[in-house]
């Protein structure tokens, strides 16, 4: 016994496994906690632990380089490998950080929107969703991605439908159909790659892809992978599950999902695009993500335009998410170092911004009982702090200088400008879309500040447990707009490591 202990349980070395295992083990435990707020407190604790782990991992990666962890002690192509480099350490931190910030917020919102006797299941679902998202990000095995994708998806369906709005059920079902189609496309893509290379490990796959890269099968695999992943992150023609899904699910769920779920799918795209296919000479010219560019442009144009005409605040924000995903994909599609940096940093910035906005919307929902824009008249007067946070985060959404949103758009425009005339046009479109964002944010401001409050006088400011996370994120939007060391620099390192493999 003592010898075994000496043989070394090393917390530091086990961190990659713990990152996923902690929420995975916590979820079943959470179902046992039936007392008041117990599940919530437990989930918060676990989230804090997970965030700490992800920070430690990021630190390790930045100082020591890529971490490889062999599950079950079997070397990579035989067993499953966890492989952490800059990019996924960064995404891990975003996901666990958002979970940690939105859980305090969730307390009141969930109390209001989810039946009391379901709380232990709700938070177990939350932890499973977190576990799935982390698992997708951290793993270095193509099939493992699919498994964790399904964990997070199933948990998402369940969380979405956990509220009291009957429309959420339909939205969840719609997402279930599309999500399953997407996941199965990914499965087909992975299968074709497996048939052609004989391995499931992503790094090994990239090595062995060279000799068969000319085959149609590998190209078909790439097509299926990209189509499947695009379905998962709601790129324009496949976006229609997203607005309803985010608008009708409980506020806390919308906060968490809008900031993390699509981002992780985009990470998967990056992984396949650059790590697997990027290495192969035959794909350098093809550059699959570039095929997504037109869709991405349509996404941010149409997303912004539709957002203007929404009557519901949450739906407006959800449509704006469709647009923002467009920006990120534009960054990836451009494929240059700047573009990729912009895309990756926008993953981070948009997570902050959108989480803050959804938090504000959720706080209004809690107090007013509706997020229809007409009902929000004068909310600036009765909930001044919430509304101010909304406006400030809205500025970041638009991309006003000194906000985080500006930083990422700056890099996107820079990257676009490197591409000649088409690039100028693209940059113009990005600016145009930002103007559209001004319009839809202004609509809310106009209603909130320049109309008389109509609701009853009992409406008060949102509770502190909601305001604190909300303001934390809002201030973060500004902090990361001014101090770009942590966001942009890490993103640049990540982008260059991705492209470095590609070159």
């Amino acid at each position, binding site marked *: 016994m003592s010898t075994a202990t000496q043989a070394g349980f090393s917390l530091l070395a086990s961190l990659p496994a713990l990152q996923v295992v902690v929420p995975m083990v916590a979820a079943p435990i959470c179902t046992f906690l039936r007392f008041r707020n117990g599940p919530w407190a437990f989930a918060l604790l676990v989230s804090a632990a997970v965030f700490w782990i992800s920070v430690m991992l990021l630190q390790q990666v930045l100082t020591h380089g890529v971490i490889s962890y062999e599950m079950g002690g079997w070397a990579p192509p035989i067993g499953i490998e966890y492989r952490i480099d800059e990019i996924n350490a960064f995404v891990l931190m975003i996901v666990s950080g958002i979970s940690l910030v939105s859980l305090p917020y969730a307390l009141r919102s969930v109390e209001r929107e989810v039946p009391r006797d379901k709380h232990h299941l709700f938070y177990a679902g939350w932890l499973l969703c977190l576990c799935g998202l982390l698992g997708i990000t951290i793993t270095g095995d193509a099939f493992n991605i699919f498994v964790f994708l399904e964990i997070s998806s199933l948990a998402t369906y369940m969380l979405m439908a956990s509220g009291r709005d009957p429309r959420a059920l339909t939205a969840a079902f719609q997402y279930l159909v599309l999500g399953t189609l997407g996941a199965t496309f990914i499965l087909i893509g992975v299968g074709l790659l497996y048939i052609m290379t004989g391995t499931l490990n992503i790094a090994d796959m990239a090595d062995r892809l060279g000799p068969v890269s000319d085959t*149609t099968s590998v190209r078909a695999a790439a097509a299926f992978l990209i189509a499947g992943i695009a379905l998962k992150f709601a790129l324009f023609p496949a976006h229609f599950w997203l607005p309803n899904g985010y608008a009708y699910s409980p506020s806390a769920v919308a906060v968490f999902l809008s900031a993390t779920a699509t981002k992780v799918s985009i990470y998967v795209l990056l992984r396949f695009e650059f790590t697997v296919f990027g290495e192969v000479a035959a794909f350098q010219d093809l550059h699959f993500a570039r095929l997504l560019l037109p869709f991405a442009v349509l996404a941010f144009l149409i997303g912004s335009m539709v957002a203007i005409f929404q009557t519901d605040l949450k739906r407006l924000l959800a449509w704006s998410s469709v647009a923002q995903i467009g920006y990120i994909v534009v960054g990836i599609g451009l494929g240059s170092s700047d573009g990729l940096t912009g895309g990756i940093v926008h993953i981070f910035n948009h997570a902050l911004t959108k989480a803050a906005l959804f938090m504000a919307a959720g706080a209004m929902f809690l107090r007013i009982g509706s997020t229809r824009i007409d009902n929000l008249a004068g909310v600036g007067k009765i909930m001044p702090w919430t509304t101010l946070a909304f406006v400030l985060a809205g500025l970041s959404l638009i991309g006003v200088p000194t906000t985080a949103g500006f930083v990422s758009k700056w890099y996107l425009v820079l990257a676009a400008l490197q591409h000649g005339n088409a690039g100028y046009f693209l940059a113009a479109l990005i600016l145009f879309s930002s103007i559209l964002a001004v319009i839809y944010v202004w609509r809310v401001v106009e209603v909130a500040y320049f109309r008389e409050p109509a609701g009853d006088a009992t409406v008060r400011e949102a509770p502190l447990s909601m305001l604190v996370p909300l303001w934390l994120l809002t201030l973060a939007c500004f902090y990361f707009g001014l101090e770009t060391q942590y966001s942009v620099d890490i993103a640049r390192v990540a982008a260059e490591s991705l492209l470095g493999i590609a070159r």
Partner: protein
Amino acid sequence: MNLDSGIPLGDWEAIINVALLGLLLLVTIGIIRVRNLFAVVMLAGIYSLLMALVFTLLDAVDVAFTEAAVGAGVSTILSLGTLALIDSRREKVPNRFQFVPLLVSLAAGAVLFWGMQDMPAVGSADAPNQVHVAPYYITQTQADIDVPNIVTAVLASYRGFDTLGEVTVIFTAGIGVMMLLSAMPVIGARRRRRREDDDGDGDKAPNDGGNA
């Protein structure tokens, strides 16, 4: 005693394989055409059974085992349970021709057929996936783990983490169904109106859409 027929074993396997797949296609056509939901569920059960047979033929006994138990057993029972709850017997005929789905499925099929040109033939022993990782499992399992069933060894040990994920998936499904089906029903506007029509004064159902 079955190898003395002059026709190699593989050929018999292949002939039966083709026949079974043909039946599978027939069942699929049936599922598309039949409108009665109960019949669809029954046919889906047959589909799973046939799939399981094909898997047995392709040497995937464990998979066939699971497919037979899950596809033909549990999922039929769950579907019947759902049909009992939703009380919908026939699917409505769509009143307009659905163009987009056809396009999507044709596009996906076209990509696949195109992609198959360069794929190794089914059952060839020198396909890339037969020569890279798989030989390790086949040759080393006895030394590493000493379990006769290689599938179990790979499932539980070499790729044990996938299986942990699989258990988590099923766990998620369990708590998801628990959460969805033990909740109080929410009533949408249409149902509420119908109920109010039924009895004149109408029960003033609380607006549980979150607007309360």
